[in-house]
């Protein structure tokens, strides 16, 4: 396992001593308990989540070690995005809990950086690419304070790192799909998190962006960060990820890619045998909503 880095150390790898010291002083605002490295980066126990009363995830148990590049694989409607959102504590859980480094996730928000799907936002919104990346620093900036010169420097460095530094002043609708995705990645980098949750970062991007994202993921791993990446392209999945979570409403398998990326397990994830689970979920939803079948 790579050497464990200090909390609050610059995600962009360029933070001087002075910078990180100053940020630590201000960091009373962010909710971070000191990471306990004897615990898994992520631990999920008996996680069950429902959307509009319809169960979408049933009893998930998972433990992800630090420094892993994990692919989250499964068919449409398997609950991949739901898993990501519930790990961040954004959804009410029907049961179970999520811990990061041994602490409940609600106390660890600063440790988790999120890259949403690109289509979930309105790219006509009146902000520049730099404004969006700077949002990654908001968790570090107090409510009534303004982002400091340090925050802006970090945002700029993170943009350079993913190759969109020259686009800082562009309104975000004037960016290509790949550039928009990189802006989202830069925003997550600017958070200086230890765990990154990415929802379909490879969807609809050009080849250059795809290889830039891969290079970035490998670099994050070498820095001891943990990345969970929702991915739908089975062609590339085996090549990109150290380990995989095969998901279809329940956990089909989780383990090193060589162990779980097998025809049998993929068949169980994508094959027809699990449709009963989906039908059962539908029946539960109908019953809970009080409708007639």
């Amino acid at each position, binding site marked *: 396992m790579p050497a464990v880095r200090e909390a609050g150390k610059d995600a962009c790898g360029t933070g001087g001593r002075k910078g990180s010291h100053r940020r630590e002083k201000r960091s009373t605002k*962010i*909710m971070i308990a000191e990471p306990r490295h004897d615990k898994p980066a992520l631990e999920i126990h008996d996680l069950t989540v429902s959307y509009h009363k319809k169960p979408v995830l049933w009893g998930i148990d998972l433990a992800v070690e630090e420094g892993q590049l994990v692919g989250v694989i499964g068919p449409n409607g398997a609950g991949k995005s739901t898993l990501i*959102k519930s790990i*961040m504590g*954004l959804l009410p859980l029907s049961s179970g809990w999520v811990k990061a480094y041994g602490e409940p996730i609600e106390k660890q*928000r*600063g440790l*988790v950086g*999120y890259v*949403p799907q690109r289509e*979930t*936002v*309105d790219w006509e*919104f*009146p*902000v*520049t690419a730099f*404004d*969006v990346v700077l*949002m*990654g620093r*908001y*968790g570090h*900036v107090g*409510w*009534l304070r*303004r*982002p400091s010169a340090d925050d802006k420097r970090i945002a700029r460095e993170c943009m350079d790192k993913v190759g969109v530094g020259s686009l800082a002043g562009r*309104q975000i609708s004037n960016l290509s799909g790949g550039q928009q995705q990189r802006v989202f990645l830069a*925003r997550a980098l600017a*958070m200086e998190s230890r765990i990154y949750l990415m929802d379909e970062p490879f969807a609809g991007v050009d080849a250059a962006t795809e290889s830039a994202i891969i290079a970035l993921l490998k670099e994050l791993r070498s820095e001891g960060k943990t990345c969970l990446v929702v991915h739908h392209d089975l062609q590339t999945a085996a090549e990109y990820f150290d380990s995989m979570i095969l998901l279809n409403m329940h956990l089909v398998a989780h383990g090193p890619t060589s162990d779980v990326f097998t025809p049998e397990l993929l068949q169980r994830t994508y094959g027809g045998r699990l449709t009963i689970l989906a039908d059962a979920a539908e029946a539960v939803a109908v019953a809970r909503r009080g409708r007639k079948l």
Partner: protein
Amino acid sequence: MIPGTGILADRVSSDATIFDQLATFFAFDHLTLVYGAIGAVLLGTSCGLLGCFVVLRRMSLLGDSIGHSVLPGICVAFLITHTKNTLAIFAGAVVAGVMVTGFISSVTRYSRIKPDTAIGLALSGFFGVGIVLLTRIQRMSFGDQSGLDKYMFGDAAAISLGDLRLMAAITVVVVIAVLLLFRQLMVTTFDETFAASIGTPVRLLQLILMTMLALAIVAALQAVGVVLVSAMLITPAATAYLLTNRLGRMLFLSALIGSASGFIGLLLSFVLNRIPTGPCMVLTASAFFTLAFLFSPTHGVVQRTLRRTRRKRRVQRENLLKAVFGLLDERPVDTPLSISSVAASGGETQGYVRAVARSLARFGLARVDGDKLALTPDGTARAAQIVRNHRLWELYLTQEASIAPDHVHRDAEEIEHILGEELVRRLEDMLDHPAQDPHGSKIPRPGGSVLLQEGA
């Protein structure tokens, strides 16, 4: 019943010329006018600021339904107190606003009805109740002097000192809240899930925003009226949205346009006898929007059309350059050709070729002398660039993208006008400075200093 007709001008003077009225207006020695003007600017500011978030969050219809639905609240408050007490009316309006918001969200949540329909239901239902109550009140013994009808279309002259104080308080709260919560409001409006993931209390912010929205609407009611109040939220914000790409500037512009619309609307209502203030303010705001829609430097229809036309003209010029360059073949580049022969070879009319040739002459790319057309050195260089771009691109598509040589021409026809210096250099490097295109034609080598950025 024509509501809202007891208007400002009547109270100050009747039967005067427009100039007299203008003079009276700007003298500001009537207290109602001063109150009206201050109120108009205040409501323009608060509605303008909040309107930006309404527009960006796509809640425009919700604003409209809150506006309409406060009418029954006002009527009930009047029925209870029998006076037009500022605070009672305000409370009634706020309660109705909360009820309509609750109605919409519960109908959406507990049935299959979608939000737009729920909003439509709430808007018409509440407004209907409001009209019934209003008509009843006006038939009652104490009702005819109630002045409640002013709430339909607005009357800035009805703004009392108490109303003004309330409006000022609400505007101050809105301005301070938007300034302090600017970043939080921005990140939640742009990307709510991300905002929640960094610990922003998105529900609380939404509640704050909705509360301020209800307050701003109620504060604006007196001057604008329930029917049109949502326009003061939406129109200035939509106008500002067309003028800038930064949220901060959008907020500032929207507040400015809102205030200006309020003030000018008040002036119009005063000068044009018997027109209620609400419609005047909304018309002014709509006029601002129309101007921005047509003439905004970045998003305006006129600018965009102009840019498209300019680009089209440039392509026409460059195509003519290319045609002449091709016709010259091995002859000296400044050999004059007849316009009729160029037209005949390209299948164009002579009139068209002559017009484009004149345009070339204006840019110094060609000389036109009667029926003769000759390229200048600049024109020759540009023509060579276009031909080079075309052939380079064809070569790139066939070699690197494995597209058949007979499939690449149309694509190259478009790209030849767009390729910049940098891309051309990269193409040349990648293709190892080729001499021939896939059809065997020579790729010209224009000199280094001739890249003309005319009319780009």
